[in-house]
Each structure stands twice: as structure tokens, then as C-alpha cells.
């Protein structure tokens, strides 16, 4: 990603705009959550065939002093662009914003995105629209995120804020200075499991991946760790054989990692291991026992048993089934439900003691 670019912000004289109506141009940090990028890429795929780029609105949160911005969400806004003019559906933008804010009341408008790296007059016009007073992000600067989607090239994303430049008053609306600001992709623990499975499909021909079970996930993780261990030990062996050049920093790092292995008594391990494996197996056994009991209870409850007691006169089918069911349920209630319950509770207490 382009977030390794370095940025230098200089204080500079500002353009001919009345003091006070001026969004801040202080540098800020932008964090982008992956679903926003994914959504932009999806929008880019669904653009009309004759349109070079598509735009949309970015939603997110802003820290209190306005120097940290987190882009969390975005939505597409239809617009048309020709050589002479650009038209953005303002009405759509407003209504969609209202709908989004109903579902995510904590998010605010932070800026807009375009799916091309190019910055032109229209970009400036749209940027000024998003940064204006009233519906825009004023007094905070609007963030402009560009994600290039040129086939055959890497996807590059850049973020900008803008400052007015000194031009004549009639051209002020469609001109501004885009100032690059740093940004990074940020994802939390919750998204990690999702990104994991999504990116596991990246090397597959059909670009799809069935949901994997816990066991498969474990297997893959272990395979990966083993692979890395092999690489490290190959390198260490090569250093020992004087085939590869040694590095004291790497050696120190490996030593640090190795010293993390716990020194524990064999008996302790044995005991802890036995305790825990018993816990796990007992809970698994109980869960399955309870399942069987419940299944049995259901079958008894609905089984059309005739105990050979003959027909009860003046009783309809339901009564007969009901009478038999009572027997079944009684036996289950004591044998299964209670038993399972007590055993489960006993188990629970033991576990809390442990």
C-alpha cells in the first residue's frame, strides 16, 4: 500500500477566503477499515460501462480534536461526468446519508472517494461540495480517498485533504489544493477471522472458499508454523555450514524467542494436562448424553405406544396418545432431565472449584 510514503506539512499562507469560513488544514491521520475498501472495489466493478470512475461518500468517526479519522463505511453515489461538466446526485446523497445514519447513529460524514487516482477540476468541485458548510464536513476538512482500479496494476490508495488556493473569486468553487495525508488500513480482532477466510481464497482459481471448520483451521495454522520453523532451521543450518551470512541481530531474536519456552516440572504438566483433558471430554460426553436424552424424550412424547391396555371408551385419539405420553414423560423427567441436570450442575461446580 502507499502508506509508506512520507509526508511533510508546511505552514503556508492561505487563499483569499474570509477568516472563519475556512476548514482546518492541519495534518491528520486516516485509518481505513477493510470493509470500506471492499465496498469501494465492489462499487468500482458495478460502475456503468461508459464511466471511467465512480464516486461515493465516506462515513466514519473523528477523534475530538479532529486529527484522527477512521473510515468505517461508505456508500455509492451516482454521478455523471463528461468533458465539460460533472453532475452529482445531491438528493440521493442526502437521502442515503439519512438512511445510513439511522442504522449507524455514531458515524458521521467524513469525506468522499473516487475510483481513480486522477485529481482534476471536477475532483476539486466535488471536494468543495463535501467540505462546505451545512451539509458538508465543515469545520473539519473533507477527506478524499482515491483507490486506483486500473487493470494490470496494483491497487493504490491515497488520501487527501484540501486547502483553498489563491485564484479569482469566480474560480474558487472549482479549485483547491489537495494535500496528501498518511493513511493506514486498520482491522480489529473481530474482522481478522473474516479476513482470514477471505484471503485464504486469494490463491484459488475459482476465487471462492467454503467455510472451514475449527479443525481445518487448526491444521492449516500448524502446517504454516511448521513451514516457518523449517525455513528458520534451514537458515540456521546454512549459517552453521558457513553457506549463508550470519546476522547477530537475527541470532539474538531467535534466542529471545527460544527463551520464551516455559520451564515447568514434568509432573505439573502431567497433572494439568490430565485435569484439562478430563474437563473437555466430560463436557463433550455430557453434551452428547443430554442430546440423546432429549431426542429420546421427543420420541417417547410422540410415539404412538399402545401398552396393550385396550381402548378407553369415550376417549379420542389425543387422550390415548396423551395417556401413554404421560408415562413416557415421567420416566424421562426423572431419568433424563433431572439426571442430566444434576450431573451438569455437579460438573459445573467441580469446574469452578478447579
Amino acid at each position, binding site marked *: *500500500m502507499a502508506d509508506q510514503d512520507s509526508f511533510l506539512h508546511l505552514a503556508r499562507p492561505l487563499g483569499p477566503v474570509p477568516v472563519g469560513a475556512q476548514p482546518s488544514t492541519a495534518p491528520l491521520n486516516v485509518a481505513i477499515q477493510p470493509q470500506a475498501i471492499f465496498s469501494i472495489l465492489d462499487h468500482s466493478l458495478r460502475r456503468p460501462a461508459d464511466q471511467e470512475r465512480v464516486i461515493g461518500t465516506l462515513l466514519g468517526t473523528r477523534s475530538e480534536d479532529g486529527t484522527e479519522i477512521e473510515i468505517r463505511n461508505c456508500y455509492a453515489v451516482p454521478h455523471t461526468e463528461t468533458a465539460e461538466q460533472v453532475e452529482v446526485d445531491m438528493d440521493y446523497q442526502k437521502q442515503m446519508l439519512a438512511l445510513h445514519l439511522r442504522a449507524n447513529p455514531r458515524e458521521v460524514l467524513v469525506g468522499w472517494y473516487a475510483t481513480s487516482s486522477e485529481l482534476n477540476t471536477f475532483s476539486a468541485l466535488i471536494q468543495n461540495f463535501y467540505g462546505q458548510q451545512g451539509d458538508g464536513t465543515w469545520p473539519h476538512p473533507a477527506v478524499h480517498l482515491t483507490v486506483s482500479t486500473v487493470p494490470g496494476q*496494483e491497487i493504490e490508495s491515497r488520501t487527501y485533504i484540501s486547502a483553498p488556493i489563491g485564484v479569482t473569486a469566480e474560480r474558487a468553487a472549482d479549485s483547491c489544493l489537495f494535500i496528501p495525508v498518511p493513511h493506514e488500513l486498520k482491522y480489529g480482532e473481530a474482522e481478522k477471522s473474516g479476513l482470514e477466510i477471505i484471503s485464504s481464497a486469494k490463491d484459488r482459481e475459482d*476465487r471462492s472458499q467454503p467455510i472451514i471448520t475449527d479443525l481445518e483451521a487448526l491444521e492449516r495454522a500448524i502446517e504454516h508454523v511448521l513451514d516457518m520453523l523449517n525455513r528458520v532451521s534451514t537458515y540456521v543450518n546454512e549459517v552453521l555450514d558457513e553457506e549463508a551470512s550470519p*546476522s547477530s541481530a537475527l541470532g539474538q531474536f531467535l534466542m529471545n524467542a527460544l527463551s520464551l519456552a516455559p520451564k515447568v516440572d514434568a509432573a505439573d504438566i502431567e497433572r494439568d494436562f490430565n485435569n484439562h483433558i478430563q474437563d473437555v471430554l466430560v463436557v463433550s460426553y455430557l*453434551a452428547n448424553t443430554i442430546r440423546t436424552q432429549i431426542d429420546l*424424550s421427543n420420541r417417547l412424547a410422540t410415539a404412538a405406544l399402545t401398552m396393550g391396555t385396550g381402548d378407553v371408551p369415550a376417549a379420542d385419539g389425543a387422550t390415548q396418545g396423551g395417556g401413554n405420553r404421560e408415562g413416557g414423560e415421567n420416566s424421562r423427567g426423572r431419568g433424563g432431565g433431572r439426571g442430566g441436570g444434576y450431573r451438569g450442575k455437579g460438573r459445573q461446580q467441580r469446574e469452578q472449584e478447579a
Partner: protein
Amino acid sequence: MADTIKDTPIKAVQVEALVVLKVIKHSSATFPTPATGSLVGMDVNGTLQITNTFPFPAIDMPAQDSNSNNNSHQDNSSNLAAAAPRAKANTAYQNEMIKFLREVNVDANNVGWYMSTSMGNFINLNTIENQFFYQKEMNEKTVALIHDVSRSSQGALSLRAFRLSPAFMAAYKESKFTTENLQKSGFRYQDILVELPLTIHNSHLLTSYLHQLPSSIPKEELDFPPNIAALQADPNTPHPPLFPNYDSLDLSIDPYLEKTCNLLLESIDNHHTELNNHQYYQRSLGREQAKITAWQQKRKAENAARAASKQPLLPEDEWQRLFKLPQEPSRLEVLLNSRQVEQYARQVDGFTASVSSKMFAVKSNLLPGE
């Protein structure tokens, strides 16, 4: 021909990566209150492609219409949130949102809803009612995506797609869950929900983007770092890859087992309450039966006396007016509860499988030579 295409049942569900992330984001933001939202996409030859999604508005005020739908439930927030997909206000919201999405070329068909849950505790009346509402009112081909937040945080993503079986739909429509009906139809709790195989699909652009994540591979040959601080500070030091996720190597056992035990106990308690209801019904039914029999015998004796004294006979079927048999309680709760227990048991099985192998690995690592 058109009809045959239309009638193809849904065999699989294909979810776009975008949807997965949006669902995860919404679910983890509202956790532990269940999050719900709507899914849009289309049906292609029996594969339901879910291509976009949007959350339902958070319920901040107790809306009047959710009370009418949500009768006899306590008005706590999680119940309201769980009932959101079938609230009237949200249907309007959904229609409006889909109208807007159509303008930007998103597949504008509603194909279901999603819900977040914790520890697989999702099989309850609310889920069933939501899905019933969707399959009946909206569109037959809709699915419920269930995302389990607490299981996903332990490693592998837990996202599953469910539909109500046709047999259950028919039975629920008539709300006939009496013993007699269940006997006749042979309906079992395993048949309530049908799980559909789910795959995650990436677009070409996304695949290309993923190859840059979490960081691009450095293009030039790297030098060895001069010291360990430089190694850690170097931006070229690779981040842990997104895949595979090393969280699944984590060895925490007790919290999971404890939670599962609690949930199992809860289910057993529920089951017990339902059993008691049935026993109560049985007893009152028995009492009424005894009364009716007594009345009938009395009437017979009376009639015999009247016949002997040549008087007109009294009708013998008057008991149907005089006595009222108690209503049998619905067995739906029992069925759902049973299905829930089955779900827990399977969950524990899966957990046991991976955790016991992890434990044996740790043991043999720490105690080599045994």
C-alpha cells in the same frame, strides 16, 4: 421452461467478501445485543449469491408496531433487536434502501437477513418467526445468515446459512404442534432448519487487492538488520499474514466449556418447564375425563331408570357442552429447544476435536521422549 428455473430450490449460498466483513463489523459493534440486517443479491441456478447487505436501524425507542408483532415478549432491547427483521418500520426501511441501491447497480433483490449470535444460541422463536416472515411474506428464496461472534473470535469464522424446511413452514402456518399432529406427520426437531453449504467468493479486483495485504512484498533484496531494535523497527519486517490465523493455536479451554455448560443447563431448564406444562395439561385432562365419565355413567343410570319408568330419555351427548377439555400446549418450544441442544452438542464436539489435539501437541512438546 421459465417455471422450471424459477422452481429450482436453493442448493448453496455464495457470500461476497464484502458482505462477510459488513456483517462482522455490525455484529461486533453491537455485541452482545444481536445485530440484524438485510441481505441483497440474486439467485443463479440454485445458488443464492449474496452480494451486498445493510444493517437495520438500531432500535432506540420502543416502537409501537414492534409490540404488536412481538406479543407476550418482554420489551427488553435484545428481544426488540432480534425481532427487528419483521418490524413494519424496518420493512419500509429495507424497501427504501433497496430502491436506492438499485440506482448504483447493486443486485436489488432481497434474499434474506442476517443475525449475530453468541455461542450458537440462536435457535429460538424469534429466529423462526423472522425466517418464517421472510419466506412467507417477502420471497420464498430467502436465507438467514447466522454469524457467531464469540466463536469467530476464537479462530475460524462461524457463518452459517439456514432456511426453514417446507414441512416446518406448512406446520407453522397452521400452528399445529400438538402431539397428534406430530405423530401423524412424523415431524422431528432435526427437520426444522435446513443448513445450506456456504462459500465465500471474492471478485477479481479484491483478489488483486488481497495480494497486497497486509503489506506488499519488498521488491529489492533486503539487508540484514544491524541490531535487534532495527529489526523490530524496520517497516519491511513482515506482519503476520492474514491467513492462516494463529489465533486458532490459542489454548484457552475453560471459558468456552463454562459458557457451553451454562447454556446447556439453561436448555435443560427450559425443557423441564415445558415438561411440567405438559404434565399439568395431562393432569387437568385426566380430571376432566374422569368428570365426563362420571357424568356419563350417571346419565346412563338415569336413562335406565327413566326407561324403566317409561319416561322420555335424556340426551347422552350433552357432556360436550357441559365440559371443556383443556387446550394442549404447543410442542414447538420443546422442538426448538431440542434443536438448540443438538446445536450445542455439535459445537462441543467440534471444540473437543481441536482442543484435545492441541493439548496432546503441547504435552508432547513439553515432555519430549514420552
